[in-house]
């Protein structure tokens, strides 16, 4: 069953046509990588899945609902099911790590404060962030901020997680940590879309990869297909020749 379905997606910024006609789908429990050159519109596509951007035309289906024409009020329910992990964490800098993680729980659940506290501390342990609960985001390293951002996004158990370059600018240790977390969620059955330039991460976590080129899906394939076809567009892109 397709959890995400994008059909004939078109989007321009001023005179610049970013997406001419993009269509792709993601099945339940699948992890799909979205790759392409800088400015190819990968993040815009990802943002449109939760209504942070609106397409000029086309349809964006999330669990069978076309969310493209939805208002901000209608999108609230979608945003509870589909989490977005921002490239730099986008943590609220006026709040501590604890408050950041408590935010979605207080907004969308009826949990008591002690239950919220337990959930947060369990998650911090799982993410290797124990004892950082009362630290402000500015006092965390980039890798830790990304991990807190990821923890905040998944704390209310979304069905789909959208990752916007989760490993960009990270050292190998933090990159592997993020990969492990994505894989852990995948094993739990969470559907994911990963926008990335980090090909080792894409190979480590993705089942399939879509390549955006000239405002369209230029190529698509599984990791297995990629390895089989070294002359294909995806392989060329990865080796720095194609796009």
């Amino acid at each position, binding site marked *: 069953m397709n959890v995400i379905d994008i059909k004939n997606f078109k989007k321009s910024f001023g005179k610049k046509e970013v997406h001419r006609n993009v269509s792709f789908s993601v099945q339940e429990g699948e992890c799909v990588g979205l790759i392409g050159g800088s400015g190819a519109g990968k993040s815009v596509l990802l*943002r449109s899945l939760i209504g942070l951007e609106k397409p000029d035309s086309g349809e964006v289906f999330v669990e069978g609902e076309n969310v493209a024409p939805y208002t901000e009020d209608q999108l609230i329910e979608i945003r509870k099911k589909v989490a977005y992990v921002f490239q730099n964490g986008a943590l609220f800098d006026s709040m501590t790590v604890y408050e950041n993680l408590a935010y979605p729980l207080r907004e969308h659940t009826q949990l008591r404060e002690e239950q919220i506290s337990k959930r947060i501390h369990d998650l911090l342990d799982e993410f290797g962030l124990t004892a950082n609960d009362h630290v402000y985001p500015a006092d965390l390293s980039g890798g830790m901020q990304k991990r807190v951002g990821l923890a905040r996004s998944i704390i209310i158990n979304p069905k789909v997680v959208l990752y916007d370059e989760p490993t960009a600018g990270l050292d190998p240790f933090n990159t592997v940590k993020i990969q492990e977390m994505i894989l852990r969620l995948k094993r739990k059955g969470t559907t994911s879309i990963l926008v990335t330039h980090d090909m080792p991460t894409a190979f480590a976590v993705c089942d399939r990869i879509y390549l955006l080129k000239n405002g369209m899906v230029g190529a698509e394939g599984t990791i297995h297909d990629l390895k089989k076809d070294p002359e294909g567009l995806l392989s060329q892109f990865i080796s720095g020749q194609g796009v």
Partner: protein
Amino acid sequence: MTLAFKFFQIVGEMSQLVRQIWSEVRRKPLYLQLIVEQVLQIGIKSFPLIMIVVGCVGMVMALQFGVSLEKFGGKMYVPKIVSLSIIRELGPVLAGLMMAARVGAGITSEIGSMKVTEQIDAIRALGTSPIKKIIIPRVVGSLIALPILSVMANTVGVYGGLFIGYADLGLDPQFYFQKMISTITVSDYLSGLGKSFFFAFFISVPACYYGLKVTGGTRGVGKATTRSVVTACILIIMSDYFLTKLFLTLEHWISG
């Protein structure tokens, strides 16, 4: 894009923001704790600045009028002139201008920074409304804080005049106080207070609007902050004439 087109575009977008605020302020949840936090923050942030400025203006006015009117034997009019000008006009206007500089700039730069670091998008992505979480507490907080600050500023301004009247002009404090009480009416006080609500609106709405419109990173935050303060100051000064006219008409109409 012509200047007129840009002007109407900004007016239209600000009206849209006001419409959104109005529609969301009437729906649950209303984050009362955030509003209280903003009232305290705005009040505490602006209090010293506003009190110093209005207090000093009260003192300067008493000195200037005292020295000028003394030539015509009109020194005894100083309490009337100073207290009436402070309560009807200068207290609310100066409090508004100082709040625009201190709080308006703060609101724009805070929201602008949140915008460029994707925190506003994060609020939306987490299924909540930035209007409810960020904008309404600041607008409502300003609407509550500025009238309170204006009342305090009026008191400090009037007492500043009284101090100079006594220390420099040799006026008896009791005489000063009596003259002031006999001059100021409830409508004078309400006129000043009424203005401060409008001024709070003219500070907070452009401040939030320009904050939400920030583009271009930290440079954009700086530009937006300047625009927000300039817009608020112009709106306060311009609207002051019309509000004075409105309140005078209302007073005439009520007193028959």
